[in-house]
C-alpha cells in the first residue's frame, strides 16, 4: 500500500481520513439541528406575550465583543492546524490553548448576558419568544462549552503524545467543529441579534 505524499497529512492514513469524513457527516446532522432551532426562533420571534421584544432585550455591545472573540478563536485554531501541518508542535499546542481560552471567555460572557436577562425577570417562562431565543443561543453555547472540554483533552493528548497520526486527525476534526460553531454564530449574530435590534 503506497502512501501518497501529495495528500494533506491528516488524510495520509486511510482510516483517519474516513474518520474525518464521518465527522463532516456529523456536522451535516448538526446543520439540521440548528436549522430546526432557527425555524422555531423565526416562527416565535414576534410571539412575545407580556415579555420584552427582541429590541428591548438585546444590547449589541457585549454581543459584538462575543462575535469578535469567536472570530479570533476561529483564526487561532486555523493557525494551530497550520502549525501542525508544518510539524511544529509547540505553536500548534499554544494556538489550541489560546483557542480554548477564547472559547471559555465567550461562554463566560454569554452566561453573564443570560443571567443579566434572568435577573431582570426575563426568564424563558415569560414568552415563547424568550424560550426560543434562550434555547437557540443556549444550544450554540453548550456546543461551545463541549468544544472547550474537548479542547482541554485534545491539548493534553497533544502535550503527552505529540503530533501522532491520530492526534493530527483529532486536531483537524476539532478545527472543523470550531469553525462550524463560528459559522452558526455568524448566523445567530446576524439573524437573531442584528435584525432583532434593527
Amino acid at each position, binding site marked *: *500500500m503506497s502512501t*501518497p505524499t*501529495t*495528500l*494533506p497529512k491528516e*488524510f495520509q492514513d*486511510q*482510516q483517519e*481520513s*474516513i474518520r*474525518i*469524513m464521518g465527522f*463532516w*457527516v456529523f*456536522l*451535516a*446532522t448538526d*446543520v*439540521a439541528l*440548528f*436549522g*430546526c432551532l*432557527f*425555524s*422555531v426562533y*423565526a*416562527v416565535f420571534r414576534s410571539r412575545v406575550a407580556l415579555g420584552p421584544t427582541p429590541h428591548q432585550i438585546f444590547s*449589541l455591545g457585549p454581543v*459584538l465583543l462575543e*462575535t*469578535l472573540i469567536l*472570530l*479570533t478563536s*476561529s*483564526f487561532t*485554531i*486555523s*493557525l494551530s492546524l*497550520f502549525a501542525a*501541518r*508544518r510539524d511544529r508542535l509547540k505553536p500548534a499546542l499554544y494556538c489550541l490553548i489560546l483557542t480554548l481560552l477564547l472559547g471559555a471567555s465567550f461562554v463566560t460572557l454569554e452566561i453573564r448576558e443570560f443571567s443579566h436577562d434572568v435577573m431582570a425577570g426575563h426568564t424563558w417562562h415569560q414568552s415563547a419568544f424568550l424560550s426560543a431565543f434562550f434555547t437557540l443561543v443556549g444550544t450554540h453555547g453548550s456546543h461551545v462549552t463541549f468544544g472547550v472540554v474537548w479542547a482541554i483533552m485534545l491539548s493534553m493528548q497533544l502535550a503527552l503524545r505529540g503530533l501522532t497520526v491520530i492526534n493530527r486527525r483529532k486536531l483537524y476534526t476539532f*478545527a*472543523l467543529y470550531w*469553525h*462550524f460553531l*463560528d*459559522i452558526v454564530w*455568524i*448566523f445567530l*449574530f*446576524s*439573524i437573531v441579534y*442584528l*435584525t432583532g*435590534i*434593527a
Partner: protein
Amino acid sequence: MQMERDISHVPTGRGDEVEIHGLAPHLHMTRFPTQQIIGYLVSLLLTLFAFALVAYHWLPLNLLVIVVVCLAFVQGAIQLGIYMHLREGRGTLWHLPVLGLAGFVGLGIVGFSIWIMLFKSGVS
C-alpha cells in the same frame, strides 16, 4: 460518477481501492499563513460592516435584513472555504454532496416552517 480504476494491487479491506484515483490535489503548503490572515481580516470587516449597517440605520428595514443575511452567507462561505479546507479529502470528496444536502435541508426546514406556520398563504 465513478470511473474504472486500477485494481491490480492487493486489497486491504479498508476501502483504499475505491478511491485511490483522483486523490485531492488541493493542498497549499505555504511558509506563512497568508490565507488565514486574509480570511480573518475579511471576516472582521464584514462583521463590523454588518454591525455598522444596523447601528447607523443606513438602510430601510426590509433591505437591511436581506443584506445582513446575505453578508452572513458570505462570511459562512469564507469560513468554509479558507478555514475548513472544504476541498481537501481523499479520493471522491463525499462530504461535499452531504454538506450540500445539509444546506438544502436546513434552509428547507427554516423556509418551509416559516411559510407553513406564519399562516401567510390565506385562510382555509
